Protein backbone atom coordinates (compact mmCIF):
# COMPACT_ATOMS: atom_id res chain seq x y z
CA UNK A 1 0.00 0.00 0.00
CA UNK A 2 1.15 3.58 -0.60
CA UNK A 3 1.76 4.12 3.12
CA UNK A 4 4.78 1.87 2.77
CA UNK A 5 6.51 4.10 0.23
CA UNK A 6 9.11 6.11 2.15
CA UNK A 7 10.71 9.47 1.49
CA UNK A 8 8.77 10.16 -1.71
CA UNK A 9 5.99 12.38 -0.42
CA UNK A 10 5.38 14.17 -3.71
CA UNK A 11 5.14 10.90 -5.63
CA UNK A 12 2.83 9.38 -3.04
CA UNK A 13 0.61 12.48 -3.14
CA UNK A 14 0.10 12.17 -6.89
CA UNK A 15 -0.37 8.43 -6.82
CA UNK A 16 -2.95 8.77 -4.06
CA UNK A 17 -4.91 11.16 -6.26
CA UNK A 18 -4.82 8.53 -9.00
CA UNK A 19 -6.00 5.88 -6.55
CA UNK A 20 -8.85 8.11 -5.45
CA UNK A 21 -9.83 8.65 -9.07
CA UNK A 22 -9.16 12.39 -8.94
CA UNK A 23 -6.40 12.21 -11.52
CA UNK A 24 -6.73 9.90 -14.51
CA UNK A 25 -4.17 11.26 -16.99
CA UNK A 26 -0.90 9.42 -17.57
CA UNK A 27 1.83 10.12 -15.03
CA UNK A 28 5.55 10.06 -15.67
CA UNK A 29 7.64 9.20 -12.61
CA UNK A 30 11.13 10.61 -12.98
CA UNK A 31 14.13 9.60 -10.93
CA UNK A 32 17.15 7.35 -10.70
CA UNK A 33 16.88 3.60 -10.81
CA UNK A 34 16.15 2.07 -7.42
CA UNK A 35 14.52 5.08 -5.73
CA UNK A 36 11.13 3.40 -5.55
CA UNK A 37 9.26 4.44 -8.68
CA UNK A 38 8.14 0.98 -9.72
CA UNK A 39 7.52 -0.04 -6.13
CA UNK A 40 5.16 2.96 -5.72
CA UNK A 41 3.25 2.04 -8.86
CA UNK A 42 2.79 -1.52 -7.63
CA UNK A 43 1.64 -0.24 -4.25
CA UNK A 44 -0.82 2.15 -5.92
CA UNK A 45 -2.06 -0.74 -8.07
CA UNK A 46 -2.59 -2.84 -4.95
CA UNK A 47 -4.52 -0.04 -3.33
CA UNK A 48 -6.75 0.23 -6.42
CA UNK A 49 -7.17 -3.50 -6.95
CA UNK A 50 -7.61 -4.73 -3.37
CA UNK A 51 -11.13 -6.03 -2.84
CA UNK A 52 -10.81 -6.68 0.87
CA UNK A 53 -9.16 -4.93 3.79
CA UNK A 54 -6.66 -2.71 1.92
CA UNK A 55 -3.83 -3.77 4.18
CA UNK A 56 -0.29 -4.67 3.16
CA UNK A 57 -0.70 -8.36 3.91
CA UNK A 58 -4.18 -8.68 2.48
CA UNK A 59 -4.97 -12.12 1.15
CA UNK A 60 -7.70 -11.30 -1.34
CA UNK A 61 -7.41 -12.76 -4.83
CA UNK A 62 -6.34 -9.47 -6.37
CA UNK A 63 -3.58 -8.84 -3.82
CA UNK A 64 -2.40 -12.43 -4.14
CA UNK A 65 -2.16 -12.17 -7.93
CA UNK A 66 -0.36 -8.84 -7.69
CA UNK A 67 2.15 -10.26 -5.24
CA UNK A 68 2.78 -13.18 -7.57
CA UNK A 69 3.08 -10.87 -10.58
CA UNK A 70 0.24 -12.61 -12.44
CA UNK A 71 -2.58 -10.10 -12.19
CA UNK A 72 -4.38 -9.86 -15.55
CA UNK A 73 -5.11 -6.15 -15.11
CA UNK A 74 -1.55 -5.08 -14.45
CA UNK A 75 0.86 -4.91 -17.36
CA UNK A 76 4.49 -3.91 -16.87
CA UNK A 77 6.56 -3.26 -19.99
CA UNK A 78 10.34 -3.39 -19.58
CA UNK A 79 13.14 -2.83 -22.10
CA UNK A 80 14.27 -5.77 -24.18
CA UNK A 81 17.97 -5.49 -25.05
CA UNK A 82 18.02 -1.90 -23.86
CA UNK A 83 14.97 -0.78 -25.85
CA UNK A 84 11.22 -0.80 -25.34
CA UNK A 85 10.19 -2.34 -28.64
CA UNK A 86 7.16 -1.35 -30.68
CA UNK A 87 5.65 -4.85 -30.46
CA UNK A 88 5.38 -4.57 -26.68
CA UNK A 89 3.72 -1.15 -26.95
CA UNK A 90 1.25 -2.43 -29.55
CA UNK A 91 0.28 -5.25 -27.17
CA UNK A 92 -0.21 -2.64 -24.45
CA UNK A 93 -2.39 -0.47 -26.67
CA UNK A 94 -4.59 -3.44 -27.62
CA UNK A 95 -4.89 -4.47 -23.99
CA UNK A 96 -5.81 -0.92 -22.94
CA UNK A 97 -8.85 -0.99 -25.21
CA UNK A 98 -10.48 -3.84 -23.27
CA UNK A 99 -12.19 -3.63 -19.89
CA UNK A 100 -10.45 -4.84 -16.73
CA UNK A 101 -10.96 -8.47 -15.75
CA UNK A 102 -11.27 -8.42 -11.98
CA UNK A 103 -9.98 -5.03 -10.83
CA UNK A 104 -11.84 -1.72 -11.15
CA UNK A 105 -9.19 -0.36 -13.55
CA UNK A 106 -6.29 -1.63 -15.65
CA UNK A 107 -2.81 -0.41 -14.73
CA UNK A 108 -0.08 -0.06 -17.34
CA UNK A 109 3.48 0.64 -16.29
CA UNK A 110 6.22 1.34 -18.85
CA UNK A 111 9.46 0.94 -16.94
CA UNK A 112 11.89 2.65 -19.30
CA UNK A 113 9.91 5.35 -21.10
CA UNK A 114 13.25 6.93 -21.94
CA UNK A 115 14.24 3.73 -23.71
CA UNK A 116 11.28 3.61 -26.06
CA UNK A 117 12.19 3.55 -29.73
CA UNK A 118 10.70 6.28 -31.90
CA UNK A 119 8.25 3.78 -33.36
CA UNK A 120 7.19 2.68 -29.86
CA UNK A 121 6.67 6.24 -28.71
CA UNK A 122 4.60 7.06 -31.79
CA UNK A 123 2.51 3.92 -31.33
CA UNK A 124 1.66 5.06 -27.80
CA UNK A 125 0.83 8.71 -28.54
CA UNK A 126 -2.85 8.33 -29.42
CA UNK A 127 -3.57 6.15 -26.40
CA UNK A 128 -1.85 8.58 -24.07
CA UNK A 129 -3.70 11.49 -25.64
CA UNK A 130 -7.09 9.98 -24.88
CA UNK A 131 -6.63 7.20 -22.35
CA UNK A 132 -9.54 4.77 -22.01
CA UNK A 133 -11.55 5.57 -18.84
CA UNK A 134 -10.65 2.25 -17.25
CA UNK A 135 -6.89 2.50 -17.84
CA UNK A 136 -4.19 4.17 -15.78
CA UNK A 137 -0.77 4.77 -17.31
CA UNK A 138 2.49 5.16 -15.42
CA UNK A 139 5.68 5.86 -17.34
CA UNK A 140 9.03 5.57 -15.56
CA UNK A 141 12.10 7.42 -16.81
CA UNK A 142 15.38 8.64 -15.40
CA UNK A 143 15.09 12.17 -16.76
CA UNK A 144 12.35 13.91 -18.72
CA UNK A 145 14.82 15.18 -21.31
CA UNK A 146 15.43 11.64 -22.54
CA UNK A 147 11.75 11.18 -23.41
CA UNK A 148 10.48 12.61 -26.68
CA UNK A 149 8.51 15.87 -26.18
CA UNK A 150 5.23 14.53 -27.60
CA UNK A 151 5.12 11.82 -24.92
CA UNK A 152 6.37 14.14 -22.21
CA UNK A 153 3.68 16.74 -22.86
CA UNK A 154 0.92 14.16 -22.48
CA UNK A 155 1.96 13.16 -18.96
CA UNK A 156 1.95 14.73 -15.54
CA UNK A 157 5.57 14.79 -14.35
CA UNK A 158 6.48 13.69 -10.83
CA UNK A 159 10.07 13.84 -9.65
CA UNK A 160 11.32 11.11 -7.31
CA UNK A 161 14.15 12.11 -5.01
CA UNK A 162 17.23 10.18 -4.08
CA UNK A 163 16.70 8.37 -0.80
CA UNK A 164 18.56 9.45 2.30
CA UNK A 165 21.65 7.49 3.30
CA UNK A 166 20.12 6.92 6.73
CA UNK A 167 17.05 5.30 5.25
CA UNK A 168 19.12 3.06 2.97
CA UNK A 169 21.29 2.08 5.92
CA UNK A 170 18.25 1.20 7.99
CA UNK A 171 17.08 -1.16 5.25
CA UNK A 172 20.52 -2.71 4.68
CA UNK A 173 21.03 -3.33 8.38
CA UNK A 174 18.21 -5.86 8.25
CA UNK A 175 20.43 -8.16 6.20
CA UNK A 176 23.95 -7.17 7.25
CA UNK A 177 25.38 -6.51 10.73
CA UNK A 178 28.65 -4.97 9.57
CA UNK A 179 28.03 -1.28 10.22
CA UNK A 180 30.99 0.01 8.25
CA UNK A 181 30.13 -2.03 5.16
CA UNK A 182 26.51 -0.96 5.36
CA UNK A 183 27.55 2.71 5.60
CA UNK A 184 29.92 2.46 2.64
CA UNK A 185 27.41 0.68 0.45
CA UNK A 186 24.68 3.15 1.40
CA UNK A 187 26.92 6.00 0.27
CA UNK A 188 28.08 4.17 -2.85
CA UNK A 189 24.49 3.67 -3.96
CA UNK A 190 24.00 7.46 -4.18
CA UNK A 191 20.43 7.42 -2.91
CA UNK A 192 19.24 4.33 -4.74
CA UNK A 193 17.97 1.55 -2.51
CA UNK A 194 17.82 -0.80 -5.49
CA UNK A 195 21.53 -0.29 -6.20
CA UNK A 196 22.44 -0.60 -2.52
CA UNK A 197 20.70 -3.97 -2.24
CA UNK A 198 22.36 -5.06 -5.46
CA UNK A 199 25.83 -3.99 -4.26
CA UNK A 200 25.36 -5.74 -0.94
CA UNK A 201 24.10 -8.95 -2.50
CA UNK A 202 26.68 -9.23 -5.26
CA UNK A 203 29.87 -8.33 -3.40
CA UNK A 204 30.55 -5.15 -5.33
CA UNK A 205 33.10 -4.01 -2.77
CA UNK A 206 35.50 -6.48 -4.37
CA UNK A 207 35.12 -4.68 -7.68
CA UNK A 208 35.68 -1.35 -5.91
CA UNK A 209 38.92 -2.77 -4.48
CA UNK A 210 40.02 -3.80 -7.98
CA UNK A 211 39.43 -0.25 -9.19
CA UNK A 212 41.45 1.10 -6.28
CA UNK A 213 44.20 -1.28 -7.28
CA UNK A 214 44.13 0.11 -10.82
CA UNK A 215 44.91 3.53 -9.41
CA UNK A 216 47.79 2.07 -7.41
CA UNK A 217 49.17 0.27 -10.46
CA UNK A 218 49.06 3.42 -12.54
CA UNK A 219 51.13 5.19 -9.89
CA UNK A 220 53.54 2.30 -9.60
CA UNK A 221 54.13 2.60 -13.36
CA UNK A 222 53.24 -1.04 -13.82
CA UNK A 223 51.78 -0.73 -17.29
CA UNK A 224 51.57 -4.39 -18.14
CA UNK A 225 49.71 -5.27 -14.90
CA UNK A 226 47.51 -2.21 -15.26
CA UNK A 227 46.41 -3.24 -18.74
CA UNK A 228 45.84 -6.87 -17.83
CA UNK A 229 43.87 -5.84 -14.72
CA UNK A 230 41.62 -3.66 -16.87
CA UNK A 231 41.11 -6.56 -19.27
CA UNK A 232 40.29 -8.74 -16.26
CA UNK A 233 37.25 -6.63 -15.38
CA UNK A 234 36.18 -5.94 -18.95
CA UNK A 235 32.56 -6.98 -18.45
CA UNK A 236 32.18 -4.87 -15.31
CA UNK A 237 33.87 -1.75 -16.65
CA UNK A 238 30.75 0.47 -16.75
CA UNK A 239 30.21 -0.09 -13.03
CA UNK A 240 33.96 0.06 -12.37
CA UNK A 241 33.97 3.52 -13.97
CA UNK A 242 31.24 4.64 -11.62
CA UNK A 243 33.34 3.45 -8.68
CA UNK A 244 36.39 5.15 -10.19
CA UNK A 245 34.48 8.42 -10.35
CA UNK A 246 33.54 8.02 -6.68
CA UNK A 247 37.11 7.17 -5.70
CA UNK A 248 38.61 10.13 -7.56
CA UNK A 249 35.94 12.31 -5.97
CA UNK A 250 37.05 10.94 -2.59
CA UNK A 251 40.71 11.62 -3.37
CA UNK A 252 39.83 15.25 -4.06
CA UNK A 253 37.77 15.54 -0.89
CA UNK A 254 39.72 13.44 1.58
CA UNK A 255 41.99 16.15 2.96
CA UNK A 256 39.58 19.04 3.42
CA UNK A 257 36.14 17.40 3.64
CA UNK A 258 36.72 13.93 4.94
CA UNK A 259 33.11 13.65 6.12
CA UNK A 260 32.00 13.70 2.47
CA UNK A 261 34.14 10.71 1.51
CA UNK A 262 32.06 7.86 0.10
CA UNK A 263 34.54 5.01 0.49
CA UNK A 264 35.49 5.74 4.08
CA UNK A 265 36.64 2.16 4.74
CA UNK A 266 39.63 2.82 2.45
CA UNK A 267 40.11 6.46 3.43
CA UNK A 268 43.69 5.80 4.48
CA UNK A 269 44.62 4.43 1.03
CA UNK A 270 42.79 7.30 -0.61
CA UNK A 271 44.73 9.78 1.54
CA UNK A 272 48.04 8.25 0.45
CA UNK A 273 46.98 8.37 -3.16
CA UNK A 274 46.06 12.02 -2.86
CA UNK A 275 49.64 12.84 -1.96
CA UNK A 276 50.95 11.15 -5.09
CA UNK A 277 49.13 13.37 -7.58
CA UNK A 278 48.37 17.04 -7.89
CA UNK A 279 44.89 18.35 -7.21
CA UNK A 280 44.70 19.64 -10.80
CA UNK A 281 45.41 16.18 -12.15
CA UNK A 282 42.73 14.59 -9.97
CA UNK A 283 40.20 17.14 -11.14
CA UNK A 284 41.14 16.46 -14.75
CA UNK A 285 40.82 12.75 -14.19
CA UNK A 286 37.39 13.25 -12.66
CA UNK A 287 36.30 15.19 -15.75
CA UNK A 288 37.73 12.50 -18.02
CA UNK A 289 35.94 9.72 -16.15
CA UNK A 290 32.63 11.60 -16.34
CA UNK A 291 33.18 12.24 -20.02
CA UNK A 292 33.91 8.57 -20.65
CA UNK A 293 30.84 7.47 -18.71
CA UNK A 294 28.75 9.70 -20.94
CA UNK A 295 30.21 8.02 -24.01
CA UNK A 296 29.58 4.44 -22.90
CA UNK A 297 26.26 4.39 -24.73
CA UNK A 298 27.97 4.82 -28.11
CA UNK A 299 29.29 1.21 -27.92
CA UNK A 300 32.92 2.21 -27.84
CA UNK A 301 35.53 -0.44 -27.03
CA UNK A 302 35.64 0.45 -23.36
CA UNK A 303 38.82 -1.36 -22.17
CA UNK A 304 40.98 0.63 -24.57
CA UNK A 305 39.39 3.91 -23.53
CA UNK A 306 39.86 3.10 -19.84
CA UNK A 307 43.51 2.25 -20.47
CA UNK A 308 43.90 5.57 -22.23
CA UNK A 309 42.27 7.34 -19.31
CA UNK A 310 44.71 5.85 -16.81
CA UNK A 311 47.80 6.24 -18.93
CA UNK A 312 46.86 9.83 -19.72
CA UNK A 313 46.62 10.70 -16.03
CA UNK A 314 49.79 8.80 -15.29
CA UNK A 315 51.61 10.62 -18.07
CA UNK A 316 50.32 14.02 -16.99
CA UNK A 317 51.73 13.39 -13.55
CA UNK A 318 55.15 13.06 -15.11
CA UNK A 319 54.60 16.33 -16.93
Amino acid at each position, binding site marked *: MLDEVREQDEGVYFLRRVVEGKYTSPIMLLGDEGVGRRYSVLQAAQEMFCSDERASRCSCANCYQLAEGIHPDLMVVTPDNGEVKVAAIRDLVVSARSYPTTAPVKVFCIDGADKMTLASANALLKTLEEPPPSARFFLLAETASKVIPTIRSRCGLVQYRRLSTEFIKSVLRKSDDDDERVSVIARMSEGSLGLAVNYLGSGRLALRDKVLNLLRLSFD*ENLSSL*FSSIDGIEKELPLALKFLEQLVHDVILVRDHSSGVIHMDVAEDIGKMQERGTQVNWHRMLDDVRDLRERIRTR*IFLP*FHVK*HLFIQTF*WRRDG
Partner: protein
Amino acid sequence: MADKTRPFRVAFGGESFLLDREGMKARSWKERQVVALDGDGLSDYDLVGVCRTLPFDGRSLVVVLDNAQKVKGDKNLKGYIEAKDVTDTSVVLHAIVRSEKLPAVWELASKKGWVKEYSKFKGYDDAGVIAWIKKEAADLGLRLTEGVPNIMLTFLGHNIGALAGELQKLQFLVGRGNDVTVEHLKLVLSPSPQAEAWQVAEAAADKDFRRALNLLSILYRGEGGAAHVPVTSALMRQVEKLMVARHMFDAKMSEDEMAAGLGMHPYRFRKFFLPTVQKHRMPDLLRHMARLCQLDADVKSSAQSRRSLVELTVLSITQ
Protein backbone atom coordinates in the same frame (compact mmCIF):
# COMPACT_ATOMS: atom_id res chain seq x y z
CA MET B 1 41.87 -47.63 -47.39
CA ALA B 2 42.80 -49.57 -44.31
CA ASP B 3 41.96 -46.64 -42.06
CA LYS B 4 38.43 -46.56 -43.41
CA THR B 5 37.67 -49.80 -41.73
CA ARG B 6 37.47 -48.31 -38.26
CA PRO B 7 34.16 -47.56 -36.58
CA PHE B 8 35.03 -43.88 -36.02
CA ARG B 9 36.75 -41.24 -38.13
CA VAL B 10 37.25 -37.75 -36.75
CA ALA B 11 38.49 -34.71 -38.68
CA PHE B 12 38.82 -31.46 -36.77
CA GLY B 13 40.37 -27.99 -36.97
CA GLY B 14 39.72 -24.50 -38.23
CA GLU B 15 40.55 -24.90 -41.92
CA SER B 16 37.06 -25.05 -43.41
CA PHE B 17 38.13 -25.89 -46.95
CA LEU B 18 40.02 -29.03 -45.95
CA LEU B 19 37.25 -30.11 -43.61
CA ASP B 20 34.71 -29.64 -46.41
CA ARG B 21 36.89 -31.74 -48.67
CA GLU B 22 37.15 -34.42 -46.02
CA GLY B 23 33.35 -34.46 -45.68
CA MET B 24 32.93 -34.68 -49.46
CA LYS B 25 35.35 -37.60 -49.62
CA ALA B 26 33.42 -39.43 -46.91
CA ARG B 27 30.10 -38.81 -48.64
CA SER B 28 31.40 -40.36 -51.85
CA TRP B 29 32.15 -43.73 -50.22
CA LYS B 30 30.72 -46.05 -52.87
CA GLU B 31 30.58 -49.39 -51.08
CA ARG B 32 28.44 -48.06 -48.27
CA GLN B 33 25.14 -46.38 -47.84
CA VAL B 34 25.84 -42.77 -46.85
CA VAL B 35 23.75 -40.80 -44.37
CA ALA B 36 24.78 -37.13 -44.13
CA LEU B 37 23.74 -35.22 -40.99
CA ASP B 38 24.36 -31.79 -39.54
CA GLY B 39 25.14 -31.56 -35.84
CA ASP B 40 23.39 -28.20 -35.54
CA GLY B 41 20.16 -29.01 -33.71
CA LEU B 42 20.72 -32.76 -33.82
CA SER B 43 20.17 -34.61 -30.56
CA ASP B 44 22.50 -37.34 -29.38
CA TYR B 45 19.53 -39.67 -29.20
CA ASP B 46 18.72 -39.17 -32.89
CA LEU B 47 22.36 -39.57 -33.92
CA VAL B 48 22.71 -42.85 -32.03
CA GLY B 49 19.38 -43.96 -33.51
CA VAL B 50 20.71 -43.41 -37.05
CA CYS B 51 23.95 -45.24 -36.22
CA ARG B 52 22.00 -48.25 -34.95
CA THR B 53 19.75 -48.54 -38.02
CA LEU B 54 21.41 -50.67 -40.69
CA PRO B 55 20.26 -50.41 -44.33
CA PHE B 56 17.73 -52.99 -45.58
CA ASP B 57 19.87 -53.94 -48.59
CA GLY B 58 22.57 -55.47 -46.40
CA ARG B 59 25.16 -52.84 -47.20
CA SER B 60 27.27 -51.26 -44.50
CA LEU B 61 26.62 -47.71 -43.38
CA VAL B 62 28.69 -44.53 -43.10
CA VAL B 63 27.20 -41.66 -41.13
CA VAL B 64 28.85 -38.36 -42.08
CA LEU B 65 28.22 -35.83 -39.33
CA ASP B 66 29.11 -32.23 -40.18
CA ASN B 67 29.36 -29.61 -37.41
CA ALA B 68 29.94 -32.42 -34.94
CA GLN B 69 31.14 -29.90 -32.32
CA LYS B 70 27.51 -28.82 -31.94
CA VAL B 71 26.41 -32.25 -30.77
CA LYS B 72 26.04 -32.28 -27.00
CA GLY B 73 27.85 -35.55 -26.38
CA ASP B 74 25.74 -36.83 -23.50
CA LYS B 75 25.91 -40.31 -22.02
CA ASN B 76 23.75 -41.75 -24.81
CA LEU B 77 26.42 -41.03 -27.43
CA LYS B 78 29.29 -41.76 -25.06
CA GLY B 79 27.68 -45.11 -24.23
CA TYR B 80 27.41 -45.94 -27.94
CA ILE B 81 31.08 -45.09 -28.54
CA GLU B 82 32.28 -46.99 -25.47
CA ALA B 83 30.22 -50.06 -26.34
CA LYS B 84 31.36 -50.15 -29.96
CA ASP B 85 33.84 -52.89 -30.78
CA VAL B 86 36.81 -51.64 -32.84
CA THR B 87 36.41 -54.59 -35.20
CA ASP B 88 32.75 -53.85 -35.84
CA THR B 89 32.83 -51.74 -38.99
CA SER B 90 29.29 -52.30 -40.15
CA VAL B 91 28.68 -48.65 -39.27
CA VAL B 92 31.32 -45.95 -39.59
CA LEU B 93 30.65 -42.63 -37.91
CA HIS B 94 32.63 -39.88 -39.65
CA ALA B 95 32.61 -36.68 -37.60
CA ILE B 96 33.66 -33.30 -39.01
CA VAL B 97 34.46 -31.16 -35.97
CA ARG B 98 34.79 -27.49 -36.91
CA SER B 99 36.81 -26.32 -33.95
CA GLU B 100 40.51 -26.18 -33.10
CA LYS B 101 39.97 -28.18 -29.93
CA LEU B 102 38.49 -31.65 -29.96
CA PRO B 103 35.45 -32.01 -27.64
CA ALA B 104 35.67 -34.85 -25.10
CA VAL B 105 33.16 -37.09 -26.82
CA TRP B 106 35.04 -36.97 -30.14
CA GLU B 107 38.34 -37.42 -28.36
CA LEU B 108 36.88 -40.64 -27.04
CA ALA B 109 35.72 -41.64 -30.53
CA SER B 110 39.11 -40.85 -32.03
CA LYS B 111 40.73 -43.36 -29.67
CA LYS B 112 38.71 -46.11 -31.32
CA GLY B 113 39.40 -44.96 -34.84
CA TRP B 114 41.15 -42.41 -36.91
CA VAL B 115 41.75 -38.73 -36.28
CA LYS B 116 43.09 -35.99 -38.51
CA GLU B 117 43.75 -32.35 -37.65
CA TYR B 118 43.22 -29.57 -40.19
CA SER B 119 44.36 -26.50 -38.31
CA LYS B 120 44.37 -23.07 -39.89
CA PHE B 121 47.86 -21.88 -40.74
CA LYS B 122 49.10 -19.14 -38.46
CA GLY B 123 49.35 -15.73 -40.10
CA TYR B 124 53.14 -15.81 -40.02
CA ASP B 125 53.51 -19.45 -41.07
CA ASP B 126 54.31 -18.89 -44.75
CA ALA B 127 56.70 -21.86 -44.67
CA GLY B 128 53.85 -24.11 -43.58
CA VAL B 129 51.68 -22.95 -46.47
CA ILE B 130 54.50 -23.50 -48.97
CA ALA B 131 55.01 -27.00 -47.62
CA TRP B 132 51.27 -27.62 -47.99
CA ILE B 133 51.33 -26.36 -51.61
CA LYS B 134 54.18 -28.74 -52.41
CA LYS B 135 52.44 -31.69 -50.80
CA GLU B 136 49.14 -30.93 -52.49
CA ALA B 137 50.95 -30.64 -55.85
CA ALA B 138 52.69 -33.96 -55.27
CA ASP B 139 49.33 -35.60 -54.50
CA LEU B 140 48.02 -34.26 -57.81
CA GLY B 141 51.09 -35.62 -59.58
CA LEU B 142 52.60 -32.19 -60.28
CA ARG B 143 56.24 -31.18 -59.98
CA LEU B 144 56.52 -27.49 -59.10
CA THR B 145 59.64 -25.80 -60.40
CA GLU B 146 61.51 -23.31 -58.29
CA GLY B 147 59.66 -20.13 -57.40
CA VAL B 148 56.20 -21.45 -58.22
CA PRO B 149 55.05 -22.09 -54.61
CA ASN B 150 56.31 -18.65 -53.55
CA ILE B 151 54.45 -16.89 -56.36
CA MET B 152 51.29 -18.77 -55.50
CA LEU B 153 51.67 -17.70 -51.88
CA THR B 154 52.23 -14.07 -52.86
CA PHE B 155 49.16 -13.93 -55.05
CA LEU B 156 46.75 -16.06 -53.08
CA GLY B 157 47.98 -15.70 -49.52
CA HIS B 158 46.82 -18.29 -47.00
CA ASN B 159 43.60 -19.02 -48.84
CA ILE B 160 43.88 -22.80 -48.98
CA GLY B 161 40.71 -23.17 -51.03
CA ALA B 162 42.00 -20.84 -53.75
CA LEU B 163 45.43 -22.51 -53.75
CA ALA B 164 43.86 -25.97 -54.16
CA GLY B 165 41.72 -24.65 -57.02
CA GLU B 166 44.74 -23.21 -58.84
CA LEU B 167 46.65 -26.49 -58.45
CA GLN B 168 43.73 -28.39 -59.96
CA LYS B 169 43.71 -25.97 -62.90
CA LEU B 170 47.43 -26.57 -63.33
CA GLN B 171 46.82 -30.32 -63.32
CA PHE B 172 44.39 -29.92 -66.20
CA LEU B 173 46.83 -27.70 -68.04
CA VAL B 174 50.05 -29.71 -67.77
CA GLY B 175 48.74 -33.19 -66.91
CA ARG B 176 49.88 -35.55 -64.18
CA GLY B 177 53.60 -36.20 -63.80
CA ASN B 178 54.69 -33.01 -65.56
CA ASP B 179 56.57 -29.93 -64.41
CA VAL B 180 54.77 -26.70 -63.59
CA THR B 181 56.70 -23.59 -64.48
CA VAL B 182 56.09 -19.92 -63.78
CA GLU B 183 54.86 -19.59 -67.37
CA HIS B 184 52.14 -22.18 -66.70
CA LEU B 185 51.24 -20.34 -63.58
CA LYS B 186 50.76 -17.09 -65.48
CA LEU B 187 48.25 -18.83 -67.74
CA VAL B 188 45.97 -20.02 -64.97
CA LEU B 189 46.48 -17.84 -61.94
CA SER B 190 43.70 -15.46 -61.05
CA PRO B 191 45.29 -13.30 -58.41
CA SER B 192 43.08 -12.41 -55.47
CA PRO B 193 45.37 -10.73 -52.98
CA GLN B 194 43.98 -10.82 -49.50
CA ALA B 195 44.51 -8.65 -46.51
CA GLU B 196 43.47 -8.84 -42.91
CA ALA B 197 43.05 -6.12 -40.36
CA TRP B 198 45.99 -7.29 -38.22
CA GLN B 199 48.29 -7.09 -41.25
CA VAL B 200 47.32 -3.44 -41.71
CA ALA B 201 48.03 -2.81 -38.02
CA GLU B 202 51.41 -4.56 -38.24
CA ALA B 203 52.45 -2.61 -41.31
CA ALA B 204 51.36 0.65 -39.66
CA ALA B 205 53.30 -0.20 -36.50
CA ASP B 206 56.30 -0.99 -38.67
CA LYS B 207 55.96 2.52 -40.16
CA ASP B 208 55.67 1.01 -43.64
CA PHE B 209 53.00 3.38 -44.92
CA ARG B 210 52.98 2.07 -48.50
CA ARG B 211 52.31 -1.48 -47.38
CA ALA B 212 49.80 -0.37 -44.74
CA LEU B 213 47.76 1.68 -47.18
CA ASN B 214 48.01 -0.98 -49.86
CA LEU B 215 46.69 -3.63 -47.47
CA LEU B 216 44.02 -1.27 -46.26
CA SER B 217 42.87 -0.67 -49.80
CA ILE B 218 42.75 -4.42 -50.49
CA LEU B 219 40.78 -4.91 -47.30
CA TYR B 220 38.27 -2.20 -48.21
CA ARG B 221 37.91 -3.64 -51.69
CA GLY B 222 36.96 -6.98 -50.18
CA GLU B 223 34.90 -5.92 -47.22
CA GLY B 224 33.81 -2.34 -47.83
CA GLY B 225 32.48 -0.46 -44.82
CA ALA B 226 32.59 -3.61 -42.69
CA ALA B 227 36.37 -3.14 -42.42
CA HIS B 228 36.20 0.04 -40.28
CA VAL B 229 35.70 -1.65 -36.94
CA PRO B 230 38.14 -4.59 -37.37
CA VAL B 231 40.91 -2.26 -38.54
CA THR B 232 40.31 0.10 -35.62
CA SER B 233 40.34 -2.80 -33.18
CA ALA B 234 43.53 -4.23 -34.69
CA LEU B 235 45.23 -0.82 -34.49
CA MET B 236 44.15 -0.49 -30.86
CA ARG B 237 45.56 -3.90 -29.97
CA GLN B 238 48.81 -3.14 -31.78
CA VAL B 239 49.31 0.27 -30.16
CA GLU B 240 48.50 -1.20 -26.76
CA LYS B 241 51.09 -3.93 -27.26
CA LEU B 242 53.67 -1.44 -28.48
CA MET B 243 53.02 0.74 -25.47
CA VAL B 244 53.61 -2.08 -23.00
CA ALA B 245 56.73 -3.15 -24.88
CA ARG B 246 58.11 0.36 -25.14
CA HIS B 247 57.46 0.92 -21.45
CA MET B 248 59.43 -2.23 -20.61
CA PHE B 249 62.14 -1.22 -23.07
CA ASP B 250 62.48 2.20 -21.43
CA ALA B 251 62.65 0.48 -18.04
CA LYS B 252 65.71 -1.36 -19.42
CA MET B 253 64.26 -4.83 -19.01
CA SER B 254 66.03 -7.70 -20.73
CA GLU B 255 64.75 -8.98 -24.08
CA ASP B 256 63.68 -12.28 -22.55
CA GLU B 257 61.76 -10.50 -19.81
CA MET B 258 60.05 -8.29 -22.36
CA ALA B 259 59.14 -11.29 -24.53
CA ALA B 260 57.73 -13.10 -21.49
CA GLY B 261 55.79 -9.99 -20.45
CA LEU B 262 54.17 -9.85 -23.88
CA GLY B 263 53.62 -13.59 -24.07
CA MET B 264 55.81 -13.88 -27.19
CA HIS B 265 58.51 -16.32 -28.14
CA PRO B 266 61.90 -14.65 -27.42
CA TYR B 267 63.17 -15.29 -30.95
CA ARG B 268 60.10 -13.86 -32.58
CA PHE B 269 60.19 -10.90 -30.22
CA ARG B 270 63.85 -10.16 -30.90
CA LYS B 271 63.66 -10.71 -34.63
CA PHE B 272 60.35 -9.07 -35.55
CA PHE B 273 58.76 -7.11 -32.74
CA LEU B 274 61.68 -5.36 -31.03
CA PRO B 275 62.76 -3.45 -34.16
CA THR B 276 59.18 -2.20 -34.48
CA VAL B 277 59.07 -1.17 -30.82
CA GLN B 278 62.26 0.83 -31.25
CA LYS B 279 60.62 2.89 -33.98
CA HIS B 280 58.14 4.39 -31.50
CA ARG B 281 58.44 6.66 -28.50
CA MET B 282 56.07 6.72 -25.55
CA PRO B 283 54.65 10.23 -26.16
CA ASP B 284 53.88 9.30 -29.77
CA LEU B 285 52.16 6.12 -28.68
CA LEU B 286 50.07 8.07 -26.20
CA ARG B 287 49.06 10.40 -29.00
CA HIS B 288 48.12 7.45 -31.19
CA MET B 289 46.09 6.07 -28.31
CA ALA B 290 44.13 9.32 -28.00
CA ARG B 291 43.57 9.39 -31.74
CA LEU B 292 42.37 5.78 -31.74
CA CYS B 293 39.89 6.55 -28.94
CA GLN B 294 38.43 9.25 -31.14
CA LEU B 295 38.46 6.97 -34.18
CA ASP B 296 36.69 4.23 -32.21
CA ALA B 297 33.88 6.62 -31.34
CA ASP B 298 33.75 7.96 -34.92
CA VAL B 299 33.57 4.63 -36.74
CA LYS B 300 30.75 3.51 -34.49
CA SER B 301 28.80 6.70 -35.07
CA SER B 302 27.26 8.05 -38.25
CA ALA B 303 30.35 10.15 -38.97
CA GLN B 304 30.94 11.00 -42.62
CA SER B 305 33.81 9.49 -44.61
CA ARG B 306 34.80 6.96 -41.97
CA ARG B 307 37.20 5.35 -44.40
CA SER B 308 39.17 8.60 -44.62
CA LEU B 309 39.31 8.77 -40.84
CA VAL B 310 40.72 5.24 -40.68
CA GLU B 311 43.26 6.00 -43.42
CA LEU B 312 44.35 9.19 -41.68
CA THR B 313 44.88 7.33 -38.42
CA VAL B 314 46.89 4.61 -40.17
CA LEU B 315 48.99 7.30 -41.81
CA SER B 316 49.55 9.14 -38.55
CA ILE B 317 50.83 5.94 -36.93
CA THR B 318 53.22 5.35 -39.82
CA GLN B 319 54.72 8.84 -39.55
